[in-house]
């Protein structure tokens, strides 16, 4: 029994660590604690919520504004072209109508003239 006690005491007695032990432990821990992120890590980090949500919302807003501007500009252009075409149609129809009526009037005048003897 006494021997067992002695053995235990010997096994559990305080011992000083070898010199440089703490340094070695810290050197082993350091790389694990602060891993340098690679491009994949950065990419994954970027696509992580909530940053992804904000980015998507921003892109969607930009897209909407651009599409709206393009649509508005196209509508304005179409309207201007339509108004110009309308003006030309009215001008052409007016001229055609006038010439048509002038010709009819000339025919009527010719019909009314007494025949030459």
């Amino acid at each position, binding site marked *: 029994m006494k021997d067992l006690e002695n053995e235990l005491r010997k096994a559990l007695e305080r011992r000083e660590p070898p010199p440089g032990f703490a340094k070695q432990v810290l050197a082993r821990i350091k790389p694990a604690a602060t891993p340098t992120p690679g491009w994949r890590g950065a990419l994954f980090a970027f696509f992580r919520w909530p940053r992804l949500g904000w980015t998507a919302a921003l892109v969607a807003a930009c897209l909407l504004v651009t599409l709206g501007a393009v649509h508005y500009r196209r509508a304005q252009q*179409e*309207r201007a*072209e*339509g*108004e*110009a*075409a*309308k*003006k*030309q*149609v*009215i*001008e*052409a*129809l*007016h*001229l*055609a*109508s*006038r*010439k*048509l*009526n*002038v*010709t*009819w009037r*000339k*025919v009527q005048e*010719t019909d009314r003239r007494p025949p030459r003897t």
Partner: protein
Amino acid sequence: MRKATWMMSRLGPALLFVLFTSASAWGQDPRLKINNLDKLSAKAAEVVDVTLDEPMLKLASKFMAGDEDSEDTEAFELIKDLKGVYVKSFEFDKEGEYSQADLDAIRSQLTTSSWSRMVGVISKHDGEISEIYMMTESGGKKVLGLAILAAEPKELTVVNIVGPIDIGKLSSLEGKMGIPKMGLEKDKKTKSSSGGQDAKK
């Protein structure tokens, strides 16, 4: 060799038929070639040059249809089925600025069998020509095109309307659309337009 002869004898008539039909279709084109008159723009005091093809007419009619103006609605009814409206009108300061050849180039297109002259007033004394031509379908039921040729010593106008046009309605347009019926006062500025693009000068 025998096979080739057989094929020619079979395909020949079909080929001739296709050629004949396409030739008659070519002859039925109600669009006149009036670009030869463009050179007169430089001499004219006033130019009206309107070139409206089907897409432009459709665009214009879209804006006319939406208008509450009854006159615009009338004009819309008139143009909705048209394929083209082409006008060249020149007013000169002095006589003799256009030649007989200019007129003949237009009239030669109108003397084909496809066109028929409805009305023609030729005054040699005043040097005036007013002619109205119409192109109709073979049955004569449907109007395919209208041409108005009006020549005065100081004025030359060619109107070519392609598509089914109601002449009665066209005639009744004068005096509407804010335009007085007679004694039309026109500004002497040079007006020129061509389907949304500047006319060639």
